[in-house]
């Protein structure tokens, strides 16, 4: 079932630069049969404050690259702040919010922000802002606001729910 095959992907490449000769050999391992899994991800910490937010992103991206399915990414506690459209990190740093938005666009990811956690932290989409008489909204592209039921559903529907938190 899980036999690994060794193959040399690209031919051996010889590059001559000046006096030194660099030999680049590409090895790659791949499974004969790949079992893909359906994951859900829970992000419980805010961006920049805590590594959990970065780790969740790296995990999600890696899983997608390996061909796994991400059923949903759910943002809870301070994790809801990962969805703020108004985030402005220094230019030489990663842009955590935009990174999620781009990944969502690429892979049609379902990024869900908990409505209860979001409201008490001042995170509102257009509808919620209107409903509460607020003069602004701040949910970034690719995120949607919904209820905690979406987290429970993610636990039921996926094979693994991976929690990133403190």
């Amino acid at each position: 079932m899980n036999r690994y095959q060794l193959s040399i992907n690209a031919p051996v490449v010889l590059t001559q630069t000046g006096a030194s000769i660099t030999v680049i050999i590409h090895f790659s391992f791949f499974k004969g049969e790949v079992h893909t899994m359906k994951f859900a991800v829970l992000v419980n910490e805010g961006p920049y404050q805590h590594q959990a937010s970065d780790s969740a992103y790296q995990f999600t991206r890696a899983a997608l690259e390996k061909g796994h399915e991400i059923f949903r990414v759910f943002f809870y506690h301070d994790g809801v702040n990962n969805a703020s459209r108004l985030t402005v990190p220094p230019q030489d740093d990663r842009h955590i919010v935009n990174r999620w938005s781009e990944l969502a666009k690429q892979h049609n990811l379902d990024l869900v922000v908990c409505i209860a956690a979001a409201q008490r932290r001042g995170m509102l989409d257009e509808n919620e802002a209107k409903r509460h008489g607020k003069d602004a909204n701040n949910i970034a592209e690719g995120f949607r606001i919904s209820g905690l039921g979406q987290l429970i559903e993610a636990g039921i529907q996926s094979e693994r729910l991976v929690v990133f938190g403190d």
Partner: protein
Amino acid sequence: MEDEEGVVKKFLYLNRKAPYGSIYALESLEVVLIGAAFEQDVSLAFIDDGVYQLKKGQQTSVSTGIGVKDFSKTYRALEGYDVEKLYVDKKSLEERGLSTNDLLVDVEVLDDAQMAELMEQQDVVLSF
């Protein structure tokens, strides 16, 4: 198994933090209450400072305490939501000089091995 109606999974809520120092305990409780509507097989475990969440006599009002809403009564209402399996880590209780007499609700006390076994049995572990 997925996409079927009436799937029942084993959900464990792992409560590890003191009730008012951070919002984890309160928001964990909110997940438990919403989750109850999904009729899953739910257990709650309290370990480390999480055991303080169940402590009797919490006084948090403006006049007597820190000016935060006391949500400890909610643990007593869990029974009404069919959330009846509450577990407390033995060592965590003892280290804090607590016994089950100090707690608001009836719990089952588990040692390390039993707690590990409880976690092992679960489909979903939500750690707060």
